């Protein structure tokens, strides 16, 4: 069939080569590196595989505790962001009317301001010499600045929820937009009060969007290291921060690779479970 085959290779080879070289290969190299004993010698050379990194990983309970804490934080962030985003998506889907596009755009504009600076803005607000403290002192409501507002894990969680809420609204909105409004009328005709119309019609039909929203916040949060760096302080660090330390400060790349691989496998398993729950092809279409 004329040059349909040529077109195939033209479309097939570049993305396959690109992703193979710059996505698959580095991850495989990282996996291989986690079975290396140390950093001595060239990075690309034959080494005898060893489980030494995994042994130290298993014996050091601090890593696992931090991984557990990070997963807990990601759970808290994703659940809060999804719950807060739901009414937003509901508003845009059924109440905003003709201007829904503009309302949605207004929600997303803050995303285009530097992420680092938005996080810093909270620091200016919450810090001991920051806006909230100095305003309260100026108004003589407190004498000493409140210090509990910053440099802990709660501050990290609050900041990340704030960052994800508008983003989490998107998949929920997409799911709600596919709900046929006639279904509400049908439910009403059958005598369902509004609350029941919501719990029996809108909510179940939007569940795939809800799950997608949850994971869209969960995955980046569990791998987060930047926000803890900025406002978490030493008591607010996450699993990602130890990986970063091993690759930048202490340059123990084999152990860092092992830690990183644990996170990768954990995330992939979680997503595989979620994909079973969500009907992915239906979301794509």
């Amino acid at each position: 069939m004329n040059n349909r085959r040529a077109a195939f290779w033209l479309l097939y080879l570049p993305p396959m080569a690109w992703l193979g070289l710059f996505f698959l290969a580095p991850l495989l190299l990282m996996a291989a590196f986690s079975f290396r004993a140390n950093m001595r010698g060239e990075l690309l050379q034959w080494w005898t595989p060893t489980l030494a990194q995994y042994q130290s990983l298993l014996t050091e309970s601090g890593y696992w505790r931090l991984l557990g804490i990070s997963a807990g934080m990601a759970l808290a962030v994703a659940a809060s962001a999804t719950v807060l985003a739901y009414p937003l998506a509901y508003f845009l889907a059924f109440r905003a009317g003709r201007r829904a596009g503009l309302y949605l755009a207004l929600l997303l504009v803050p995303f285009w301001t530097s992420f680092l600076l938005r996080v810093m803005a909270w620091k200016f607000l919450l810090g001991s010499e920051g806006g909230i403290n100095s305003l309260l002192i100026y108004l003589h409501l407190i004498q000493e600045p409140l210090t509990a507002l910053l440099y802990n894990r709660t501050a990290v969680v609050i900041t990340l929820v704030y960052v994800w809420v508008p983003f989490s609204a998107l998949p929920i909105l997409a799911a709600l937009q596919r709900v046929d409004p006639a279904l509400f009328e049908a439910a009403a005709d059958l005598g369902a009060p509004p609350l029941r119309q919501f719990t029996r019609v809108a909510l179940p039909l939007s569940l795939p969007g809800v799950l997608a929203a949850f994971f869209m916040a969960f995955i980046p949060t569990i791998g987060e290291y930047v926000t803890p760096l900025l406002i978490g302080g030493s008591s607010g660090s996450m699993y990602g921060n130890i990986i970063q330390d091993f690759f930048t400060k202490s340059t123990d790349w084999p152990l860092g690779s092992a830690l990183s691989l644990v996170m990768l496998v954990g995330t992939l398993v979680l997503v595989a479970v979620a994909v079973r729950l969500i009907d992915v092809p239906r979301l794509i279409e």
Partner: protein
Amino acid sequence: MNARGRPWMLSSYYVVLLVLLYLPIGVLLLFSLNSNTTLSFPLQSFTFDWYRKLFANEAVLRSARNSLEVAAGSSLVATLLGTAVAVLFLRYQFRSKNVLLMLAMLPLIVPFIVLGVALLLLFSALHIERSLLTVGIAHTVVGLPYTFLIVISRLAGFDPNLEEAAMDLGADYLTTLRRIVLPIIAPAMISAWLTAFTVSFDEFALALFLAGTQPTFPVYLFSQLRFANRLPIMIALAVLMMVGSLTLVLVADRLRRAD
């Protein structure tokens, strides 16, 4: 949720969230106009000094230019590759189809820190100097799922019979792709390109690992965060970028409604 009876509940929720979302941005705006370098009340005098200093600061402007270059280049590559995958996925049957789909979608799932250190390993092992190019390569990978999804959602809604018709009329497949498929997915490609651009422009977690001596704007900003007196200049630039984005959004909305 009796929103039908009380529509103000949902709309006031929207307004409250909108205010909260814009609050830090308001703080940044205040900061960029405040002559003091800490945000303590009462505010001191207003000044445009930071904006004046911004345009005299070579390093800041260069980092912004670096970010523009990385974003422009990586979003272009990501759009071309994402489009290729989308066309393949909807128009061809082949055995490695699921492998390709997985490769194209997985960057959405792999945590950035994992991809960042893996690419750092690869480039170091191959003795490739870290530069804007290495940052750009990382950004093509994470931009690809977005461009793929945006283009495929447009292409999926389009009748393959049009292509059949073109080929019945004697066009070969490449010509059909160029003359029929490309014009139809062009708007989606533009939107994919814009999305990949914004993903890259503000990306920090990967860039911190992969930027060499030429920092992108977020990387440079990060290095300046501990100097309180340099911060207002950076914030001034961010405010200008923000005003630019907002204008774009409003103009695009105007155009859409004028259609």
